[in-house]
């Protein structure tokens, strides 16, 4: 029987400095479990992108992580404005971030594309006016 380990984090909105705390915590746990560093790096990048997305677009949200012996899943959920056209949002360089946010070096339109690139599976569910849920999974 394989045991599963669950971690959960709240991501605060509007705070770029503390954004990344959740992926930081996940990284630390994965290192102590002995996951391959290259995989940890992929997970860290994908999750950080997700966290930043919630900070930029949705005034925060939650991150739920489940760690199994051979698989790690991450669910990022927010009650933000939702994504109008998911297909468009998946295109590299497409962004709805404000100029001010781009000035900070974020919002380059690489969030979802990077999450797709670095994960083994990505699923995005979104309803305009209700919120967005991103499922990421990684085989380890």
């Amino acid at each position, binding site marked *: 029987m394989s*045991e599963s380990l669950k971690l959960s984090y709240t991501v605060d909105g509007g705070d770029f400095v503390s954004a990344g705390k959740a*992926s930081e915590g996940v990284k630390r746990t994965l290192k102590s*479990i002995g996951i391959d560093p290259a995989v940890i790096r992929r997970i860290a990048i994908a999750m950080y992108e997700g966290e930043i997305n919630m900070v930029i677009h949705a005034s925060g949200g939650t991150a739920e992580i489940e760690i199994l*012996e051979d698989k790690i899943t991450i669910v990022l959920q927010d009650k933000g404005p939702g994504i109008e056209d998911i297909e468009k949002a998946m295109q590299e360089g497409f962004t709805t971030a404000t100029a001010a946010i781009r000035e900070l070096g974020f919002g380059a339109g690489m969030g979802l594309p990077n999450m797709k690139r670095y994960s083994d599976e990505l699923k995005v569910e979104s309803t305009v006016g209700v919120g967005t849920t991103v499922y990421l999974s990684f085989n380890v």
Partner: protein
Amino acid sequence: MSQFKPVILDPERCNGCVSCMKRCPTEAIRVRGGKAVIRYELCMGCGECVKACPTNAKKECYDSFDGIKDFAYTICLPSPALYGQFSNLVDINVILNALLALGFNKVFEVASGAEIVSAGTQVLLENKDFPRPIIGTGCPAATELILMRYGHLAPQLSPIEQPEVIAAKLAVDEAIKETGLPREKIGVFAVTQCAAKVSSLKSDSARKYIDRVLAVKEIYFNLLAEIPSTQEKPLADLARAGKIGIGWAAASGESSGLCIDNYVSADGAENVVEVLNQLENRRLHGIDFAELNMCSSGCVGGSMNVENPFLARARLRILRNKAVLSVPQISCGEEFCRTEYQPKDVCKLSQNRAEAIKLTKTIQDIHAGLPGLDCGACGAPRCMALAEDIAKGEEVACKLL
């Protein structure tokens, strides 16, 4: 750094307070039976505990100056941080001549070795295939932290040797030519400012070039006493290093020697960790070089210095501005590069993944029942560290419950 202990405890002086334990960046200290205990497998030798100890119970380990008697001929390799320890110093030659007066036969500046590293790093920066940012290895504590906690960044560590090792190789070659003595009769003494440097110079890869490592603070007063004698005759011109080499003594010095703008330079343990985390998240896009100094202010902040780091830094700035821009005559070839760095597996809870997941769950459960004040009264730096200790079977408990 398991084979060499960078810092040891004087149990007589330790009063069991939590000062050092709280400051240790890798949580390598526990208080057990009223005394601090260092877990050496996690110690990177940064010296934060030495600086934090209110009773001077923590001591860095280094060699004695008396070792000079063990060799027919001795070479001193002073670190540039040493130059910042003296007030009203107008000429670095004063210090270098005073070192000869102290009994060394030859002086070769670590700053000269550093200039070769800088030139070598400039060449490395032209290699677009080398992963970015290239991470400088001037601070051995930062290098150790990367190998312990950020193992996958190891390929980004600069392969160029430490300045001390390069200085040692060149100085020994010169000494053999000058004296005809065999290598074993020549003693190479580095004078340095921190426990991590001692540790790294005593590692397998460096100790064949460097015989002894002395502390700035140990030779300081004797050196000060020799300064008047250097005024009796004209100073021998021994200073070879220029602005770039001298600059290595303070934070951002290594970076500014590269003549590039797109570098990051972080000093102080917390800031180094912050930058490493950003590096993991690939937030340092477009940055070619990262300089990481565990000590605030860089090497002048090392615990084996005698002078306040900010004052030392101000003095070095004056010396640096006065110095020439020297271009090393020797290029940084293969002989000045080391073998690849090997990450260390110190974070893993268990070799077996299922076992590690189970243990992490146990830690989470224990942690949920702790007050979460991170007070340290139990002898662990944070409640999470206590939960880990309990889960691993240590007989420790929260003092507040």
